[in-house]
């Protein structure tokens, strides 16, 4: 019982601290580090609540999607928007944040190992929760699941439509001064070298 109380207060305090940090810093890597802390602590709280499938999805799927989306899209911005090289203090700050996240993941793993009903050996990990979710999801909420997939498909199609033809909209002005040509703009048959 005390184990649950200790882990709840650990995860809750780290969650609130990470959220405060995420809304108070300005630079992008610090924001991403803090949002990773927020998601990890939420996953720890989900483990405490018994929602093991959701916690695993949050760690394995959701966190890398957010971090890589931000890094990928904002890497396409021009040079003057990218931050300068970090100083020693900022590097030590990043290292401390990464160490904190690593210790949090180790805490979550220790909590999982202390649970009695989960055996890593027998290959029955998370079976119970996933089984419940799958039965209810595909029996009662199948139409809503399809609609959510349609919304995601619409979002993906919209993003590709906006980003596809850079000559029509103004995103070709992005690298006009830098004499930068993305290899995606070339016709594939002409080849990269013939453009010079």
């Amino acid at each position, binding site marked *: *019982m005390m184990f*649950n*109380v200790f882990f*709840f207060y650990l995860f*809750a305090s780290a*969650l*609130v601290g990470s*959220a*405060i940090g*995420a*809304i108070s810093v*300005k630079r*992008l890597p610090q*924001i991403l580090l803090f*949002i990773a802390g*927020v*998601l990890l602590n*939420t996953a720890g*709280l*989900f483990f*405490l*609540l018994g*929602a093991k499938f*959701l916690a695993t*999805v949050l760690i394995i799927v*959701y966190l890398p*999607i*957010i971090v890589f*989306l*931000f890094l990928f*899209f*904002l890497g*396409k*911005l*021009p040079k003057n*928007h990218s931050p300068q090289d970090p100083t020693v203090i900022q590097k030590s700050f990043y290292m401390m944040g990464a160490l904190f996240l690593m210790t949090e993941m180790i805490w979550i793993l220790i909590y999982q190992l202390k649970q009695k009903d989960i055996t890593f050996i027998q290959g029955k990990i998370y079976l119970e*929760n996933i089984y*419940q*979710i799958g039965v*209810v999801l595909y029996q009662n*909420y199948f139409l*809503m*699941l399809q609609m*959510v*997939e349609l*919304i*995601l498909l*619409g*979002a*993906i199609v*919209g*993003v590709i439509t*906006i*980003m596809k033809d850079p000559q029509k*909209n*103004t*995103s*070709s*002005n*992005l690298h006009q001064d830098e004499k930068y040509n993305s290899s995606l703009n070339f016709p594939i048959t002409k080849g990269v070298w013939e453009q010079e």
Partner: protein
Amino acid sequence: MIIDLFHYLILGIILFVLGITGIFLNRYNIISILISIQIILLGTILNFVSFSKFFQSIGGQIFTLFILPISIAEILIGLVFILLLCSKKRSIALE
């Protein structure tokens, strides 16, 4: 000492208020606004999962599975708008 539903609801309220505060604090930084919307959605997700635990119903976790793709789609569209804004104004600062 027992951790019950009340604690989780208070935590969800704290996350929600922090997200709204982040939106108002960083009015001119569009990336912080997107992150603050993520924090708000995490607060609501925490409420859903805690109700699902303490009322012994799996429906809360199902609805959480519906919220997560919607928030990912929102991030996608927001980031594309950031790119378009940057290409027009050569700056991602909101006026």
